[in-house]
């Protein structure tokens, strides 16, 4: 093996040493030194890739945005558009001060955008979740009371009478909690109900995307998401669910 071939293999993976590369390095100090440089560079590369992901995440809940949206139709995709700011100036300044200023600026921008953005991440995640369970829509037979109770109990909620036949019930992992995911039959067609005890919205808001129409409503504890594929009027089922919803002792 010559130097060029050895360096190409080393450049592709400095940590691996096929036998032919090892044999070459034993007799070539320049390539051995080259490998040392590459490994040093790779350590920096690894560190560079290990960015802090927290600033890149949306706020923990969509509540601020949802709170700002009052009974209006919004599109929920794309979501991250518009989170731009100007590049910071390059004036010399203490690093901690630059970082603090940057952090404060970031918080200000984030809060402003959370309050003003028209695309609630919560609604988007509800749609994504429901799209992941397409079979839920095809259920037609009412589920047993025991099954429903098991699903609701897991989330610490209960439902009284009056919301219509429930044909699907699952306890789903959503935003860090198990939440009841139900499908209720209404005269106008099936609607999905997700009881989101840990997600707070200030006022009711509607959304529409990918053939779904939906509604997020504040509940005594958390909120309720209602979703339909056939643009079924959602106010009545939402009202029924909210009246039937009880906290479980």
């Amino acid at each position, binding site marked *: 093996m010559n130097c060029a071939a050895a360096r*190409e*293999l080393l*450049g*592709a*993976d400095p940590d*691996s040493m096929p036998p032919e590369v090892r044999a070459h390095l034993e007799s070539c100090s320049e390539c051995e030194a080259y490998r040392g440089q*590459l490994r040093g*560079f*790779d350590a*920096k*590369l*690894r*560190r*560079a*890739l*290990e*960015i*802090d*992901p*927290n*600033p*890149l*995440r*949306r706020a923990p809940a969509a509540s601020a945005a949802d709170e700002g949206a009052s009974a209006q139709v919004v599109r929920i995709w*794309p*979501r*991250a*558009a518009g*989170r*731009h*700011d*100007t*590049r*910071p100036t390059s004036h010399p300044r203490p*690093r901690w001060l630059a*970082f603090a200023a*940057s*952090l404060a*600026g*970031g918080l200000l*921008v*984030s809060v402003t955008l959370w309050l003003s953005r028209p695309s609630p991440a919560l609604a988007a*995640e509800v749609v*994504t*979740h429901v799209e*992941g*369970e397409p079979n839920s829509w095809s259920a037609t037979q009412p589920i047993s009371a025991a*099954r429903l109770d*098991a*699903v609701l109990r*897991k989330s610490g909620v209960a439902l009284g009478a009056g919301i219509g036949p429930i044909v699907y*019930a*699952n*306890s*789903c*992992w*959503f935003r*860090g909690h*198990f939440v009841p*995911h139900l499908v209720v039959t209404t005269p106008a067609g099936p609607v999905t109900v997700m009881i989101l005890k840990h997600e707070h919205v200030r006022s009711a808001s509607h959304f529409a995307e990918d053939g779904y129409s939906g509604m997020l409503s504040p509940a005594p504890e958390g909120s309720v998401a209602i979703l339909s594929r056939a643009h079924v009027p959602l106010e009545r089922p939402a009202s029924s669910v909210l009246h039937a919803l009880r906290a479980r002792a």
Partner: protein
Amino acid sequence: MTDSGRGDPAEERLARVLESYRPDLMRFAFWLTRDPGSAEDIVQETLLRAWRARAALRDSTAVRSWLLTIARRESARLHERKRPQTVDVDECLARQDVELAFHDEDPEIGELRGAILGLPNEYREPLVLQVLGGFTTGEIAAELNLSVAAVLTRLFRARNKLRERYATASATGSAPVAGAP
């Protein structure tokens, strides 16, 4: 993610384990997409898919690579579905959230991050899979549907491009060129 409706300690433990990989997934997805919004969508979908497919997870020590593989495929799916517009690296670097994520005490690391961001996808993706994901060359080849030789070439070129930019930036004390190579 669905569950049978009964609290299973093993499942709850797995849920916590999956959740603990969220930062890793976010980092990984960001480098693949260069867009925080898309990255978070990928992370969310990855965790959902992982939860649904949890029965297939036989080796608990392989959770991380399993999740990263799902995330990589989800990234490819998202790209296919949404056909995102070309990422403007300068705009991306100017974002407040990216600036915060890229902040490092060592300015050279920040410069290197900018250079990685500017790498074309064909070089950046295998590099991220290898260095951040810990995948072998063979695994990357299988994942990207390439020959091992092609992956080796891309990895070699990726490092060369970064080293060139990094050397230039270090020599001039300026940030590397962040656009196309």
